[in-house]
């Protein structure tokens, strides 16, 4: 029981410190807040403001007004409501791809660094060759051939394409940490490989892994919108990517009135990407032991 209480107290203290450190970096904290808002809005929002089913003829392409805060689109549906309902897919794709790619990369990268020798060199040769293949065109070709109809398979495909680059970086990070004396001392004290990886190595790599994960998430959002624009990924649901290309196809560029129907989804994606990046840039401080102690 006491160990449990200790553990709870310690995690409480640690999260408290993390928040204090986060607040110290204004940009990072702002990013963190925006991410939370977007995720909440995308999952809770649709319950409160479900998407309008029918078109509303007389409100087509209206600008900003009181009852339509962000104007309406070519079907007369309220842009704000559409954006709220369009976020869920994007958030899922971003987190699913990011976590999946990072997970595979960390496992393969760490394994390859620890295995060393022939296994390591073969694995890394393959990764290097894989990296010379341009990603987006390959994704586009595979997407056309494989008929992706739901976001989960799309995310898995994007994760499969993205993890090799990440694993090479993880491997070099593990290799450089592994040569440090405190890891060698842990090996001599026979603390066990599992302990060494999770308790000695990972804490020093957390900020590195998180920043790379967020990089993959931003990249996933970009690729999804691109595929939708090229018409390769079907219009299964009205997510932000679909909203943008639908508006673009409806000739928004020639009708200044309808501009809001494209600006709203674009604004949402840009805001989400910026929030992710500024949060990532503050993570260095959050995980830096030197700073954690001065809080």
């Amino acid at each position, binding site marked *: 029981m006491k160990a449990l209480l200790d553990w709870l107290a310690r995690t409480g203290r640690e999260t408290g410190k993390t928040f204090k450190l986060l607040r110290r970096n204004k940009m990072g904290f702002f990013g963190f807040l925006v991410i939370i808002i977007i995720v909440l809005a995308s999952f809770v929002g649709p319950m409160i403001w479900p998407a309008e089913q029918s078109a509303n003829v007389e409100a087509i392409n209206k600008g900003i007004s009181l009852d339509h805060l962000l104007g309406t689109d070519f079907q007369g549906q309220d842009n704000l409501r559409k954006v709220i309902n369009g976020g869920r897919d994007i958030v899922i794709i971003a987190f699913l791809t990011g976590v999946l790619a990072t997970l595979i990369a960390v496992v393969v990268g760490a394994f390859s660094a620890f295995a060393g020798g022939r296994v390591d060199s073969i694995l890394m040769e393959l990764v290097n060759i894989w990296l010379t293949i341009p990603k987006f065109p390959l994704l586009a070709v595979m997407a056309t051939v494989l008929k992706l109809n739901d976001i989960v398979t799309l995310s898995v495909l994007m994760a499969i394409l993205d993890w090799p680059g990440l694993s090479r970086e993880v491997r070099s990070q593990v290799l450089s940490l592994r040569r*440090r*004396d405190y890891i060698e001392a842990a090996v001599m004290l026979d603390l066990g490989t599992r302990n060494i990886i999770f308790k000695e190595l990972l804490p020093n790599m957390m900020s590195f892994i998180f920043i790379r994960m967020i990089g993959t998430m931003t990249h996933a959002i970009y690729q999804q919108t691109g595929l939708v624009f090229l018409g390769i990924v079907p219009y299964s649901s009205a997510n932000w990517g679909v909203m943008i290309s639908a508006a673009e196809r409806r000739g928004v560029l020639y009708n200044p009135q309808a501009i809001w129907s494209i600006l709203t989804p674009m604004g949402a994606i840009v805001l989400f990407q910026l929030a992710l990046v500024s949060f990532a840039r503050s993570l260095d401080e959050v995980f830096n032991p030197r700073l954690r102690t001065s809080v």
Partner: protein
Amino acid sequence: MKDIIRLDHVTRTFQVRRQTIKAVDDFSLTIHEGEIMCLVGESGCGKTTTGKMITGVLPVSAGTILYHGQDIAKLRGQGLRQYRLGVQMIHQDVYASLNPAHNISEIIASPLRRHGLTKGETGTQARVRELLQMVDMTPPDDFLDKYPHQLSGGQRQRVSVARALTVVPSFIVADEAVSMVDVSIRISLLNMMSKLKDAMGLSVLFITHDLALAKYFAWEGKIGVMYLGRLVELAAARQLVETPHHPYTQVLLSAIPEADPEVTRKKRTIQLRSMDIPSLLRLPSGCSFHPRCPRFLGEKCEKIVPELKTTFDGAAVACHAV
């Protein structure tokens, strides 16, 4: 006295740009229980590689290392675990030897918890305090939740020693343990280590490039001088410094300045045949010191690798001219 560590014709090779270099070449040494053995030599002579092979993190390329008479390569199960915990190392770099993400009590407590050396959390905390006391970090409570970057170089090295003692080892490899610590507190670290050595009956392999330090720390023990991977001279510490036999040892001793103007300015430096240090990639044939050796005998030194012979006063020297 029983021997604790024995190296038999140990060799370690590395691949450098498609070539094989011998970092340690046909190295044999015996260290008895409770003894202090110093390994002295310039950088690249293989002393650290030897230390790492003894601790088992670096496998040998040829030859065998015996711990209490058993070949460490063949140890399994309980015997292996006993050896693993029996031999610990104190590293040189005070900034890299402690995990920056853990505080001091975690660093010392994790081996205790891992091997169940203490009863419950209270037992562990008590043992951590006891260990900090042993390395003269008093009062221990001041340091428990401090992080490595909050300690001075000397304090960090003491924590490193305390961590090594958690598993009650019988053999410590100190690899340049004090060379990064300020001169003024170096001696207190060494005194603490020799006090612990006697208290726990440890044997120590003290690796350093500083012959004066080796003589001071090993006072009763032995000093081995290494050159380009080979042991060239082995003798009792004070005897080696006062009456060196191997030309390389003599050159080293003549080159070291003394902290006393009268002495150091009268010292005559032995002139070497050539200044540039041969690289391990193009190791000179025969005795690898022959291109620079002031007592070069010609073909014999160029062709045959001299082996260690015992001299009249009990020193072991690998040189044809002795």
